[in-house]
């Protein structure tokens, strides 16, 4: 089994930003804010965030903010709750939350809560438990959870629970590890984990580990490095992580590295991208891989960043 190619991954992440000549990366510009979060959090976990020009990033982020308080995925793009969380998380990484007009951002998020407790992603009204997590996580980071009806938010999430113990996008939606992370994360942040049957959900989650050691996100799917994050963080939050084989999972993630040019892919020998590089490194961090900063399973930020937010240092 190889080791984590830390230096290569740092170089890879720094290089991605400079790519302007291929269609695939240019056509993804609408989610650059998410990309910034994935790339920069990875650098921080690897202990290399100082390679970044903070002022440049912060001023770009603030150019993505709208009058409404929400952030777009890039300059000139419409605001959405998905990008608002990434913006807040990146600012938190750099300890720059003070540049925000907190009232404005939190009003934007609180304004997206619906009567039934659910959250829309933006003014166009698509509802998803992902947006519930984002709203709760973001407001918690900004110390403004009191701006929403937490009780209703929790009961909406609980209404998306399936008989298999998992959660979907909306009531009746199929259980999916990504959605489960969002729901468990939101319940963890609001102190509502008692709504979860931990044995039942833990059972479903640990059935995601396939023979090769990797995790899939749904039954009968191939393993994918990103679920190292979604499944693992959920198992940790409900205290059932000992039900999977950690050693096998570490090996699977390390096998997905491009040891020559850096970066991590979804499965061994596939093409790498920033998204999977982040989830691979974050997964290894949850698995306590040596040399990595610890990451918080609910806030998806390094533990020292979370501590600074809640304990002042």
């Amino acid at each position, binding site marked *: 089994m190889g080791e984590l190619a830390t230096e290569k991954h740092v170089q890879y992440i720094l290089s991605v930003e400079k790519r302007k000549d291929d269609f695939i990366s240019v056509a993804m510009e609408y989610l650059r804010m998410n990309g910034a979060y994935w790339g920069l959090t990875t650098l921080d976990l690897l202990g290399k965030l100082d390679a970044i020009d903070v002022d440049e990033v912060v001023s770009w982020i603030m150019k993505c903010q709208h009058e409404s308080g929400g952030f777009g995925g890039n300059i*000139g793009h419409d605001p959405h709750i998905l990008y608002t969380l990434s913006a807040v998380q990146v600012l938190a990484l750099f300890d720059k939350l003070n540049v925000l007009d907190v009232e404005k951002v939190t009003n934007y998020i609180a304004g997206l809560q619906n009567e039934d407790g659910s959250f829309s992603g933006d003014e166009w009204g698509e509802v998803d438990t992902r947006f519930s997590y984002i709203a709760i996580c973001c407001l918690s980071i900004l110390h403004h959870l009191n701006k929403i009806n937490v009780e209703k938010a929790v009961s909406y999430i609980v209404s998306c629970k399936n008989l298999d113990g998992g959660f979907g996008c909306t009531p*009746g939606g199929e259980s999916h590890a990504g959605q489960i992370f969002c729901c468990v994360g939101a319940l963890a942040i609001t102190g509502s984990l008692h709504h979860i049957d931990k044995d039942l959900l833990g059972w479903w989650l640990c059935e995601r580990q396939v023979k090769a050691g990797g995790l899939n996100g749904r039954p009968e799917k191939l393993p994918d490095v990103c679920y190292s994050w979604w499944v693992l963080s959920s198992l940790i939050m409900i205290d059932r992580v000992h039900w999977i084989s950690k050693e096998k999972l570490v090996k699977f993630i390390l096998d997905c590295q491009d040891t020559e040019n850096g970066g991590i892919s979804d499965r061994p020998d596939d093409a790498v991208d920033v998204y999977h590089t982040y989830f691979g490194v974050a997964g290894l961090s949850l698995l306590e891989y040596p040399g990595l900063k610890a990451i918080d399973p609910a806030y998806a930020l390094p533990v020292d960043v979370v501590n600074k937010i809640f304990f002042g240092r």
Partner: protein
Amino acid sequence: MKKKEGSSYPESKPVDLLHQFEHILEADPLIDEVGFIHPSQFAKLTEEADDATDIPTSECPSFWNRDHKFGVSTLVLLPLYNAAKLAFMAAIGEYKRLGPDVVVSGDGLESEVMKHSRALLLLSPDFGTAWNSRKLIVSKKQDLSIFMDELLLSELVLSYSPKSDHAWSHRRWVIKSVTGKCSTLQEILRKESELVEKIAERSKMNYRAWNHRCWLVSYMTRERVLQELKKSKNWAGLHVADNCCFHYRRQLMLRILKDSSCKQENASAGYAIEIYKLWKEELHWNETLIKQYIGREALWLHRRFLSLCWMKQFVTDVNDVSCNSEQKISISNDFGFFISNELQLLHSCSSVPNSDFDDFKAQATFSASYMLWLTKQSSEFLSKDSEHQEKLTAGNLKTLLSKVCPERSSLWDSLMG
């Protein structure tokens, strides 16, 4: 002679490329499939679909269009995208600067936004701002046929990007917008359902697609739900590894269950019997598939659901005074029969004839963990049935599971002490 476009060269100016691209879309509103193709394949495509009267192809075309299939050369994607984005951002910027109330429909700015957003979305399907701009303009008009055009554009985007979150979400926005304003909602739902099935055929276990189909259920009439159950059965039987379709069936079945519980007070026993039959039939069908397709996780998970609901639904009814006594007895007898049947199924599926066969090992694992899952979830029912409780003692299952699935030993240890 069939229509044909495509004589520009990659070195054409980006703006010209965009015009050409938009012109093709404008000229052939029936285009139902878009794809990105390496130009070397254009000649082959033409050859395959050729007829004698065809004109000769240029050496390096940017676009290819015939029989309403539209191919875009991979060589022009980047300049084309840049031009489309520039044009779109300029148009929507101007539109927003003036304000939607000032812009008059006929003055061309709206159609500019619509034209360029369409071009952009065919190149970058999750460019949310472009979808939003269309919602802004379409919602101002409140014209059913314009709403329906949005479904067509979304379908075209899905033809090459079947997982596009925004394209699916745009459909839901359209349906929510027209609900209550049009008489053809059930017809629209039927077509939506068919679209998901069509896309699911070539994009396996597509979560976004099936999630959309599940979302439709709450808008369906009971008749529609029953038809969907009938229709999706065939598909599920041909795609036994696709958990999405089985989940869809679960939603349909739960909807029927929910409808009946709402009507409980004046519902006849006939209603309950109908559901009873539905469940029985599904359980029987599932067992047939399990025996036919060895080691399929989705089938066993479906059985967990069916059995748990069956117990919750019909075993509680044993104590329900509102049921007539004849029915009570038959259902109560069925419970014992049911558990015996499950034990028999476990028995027939848990023998591994040759340890080299992974499928049989998987089948044994799934069957034993199914049984364990069921006993854990239905302990309240089992505790009343000492005879079967004995047969289901954890010891036997633990021995079996530790043998066929040692990699999850810590789970088995935690669950069975």
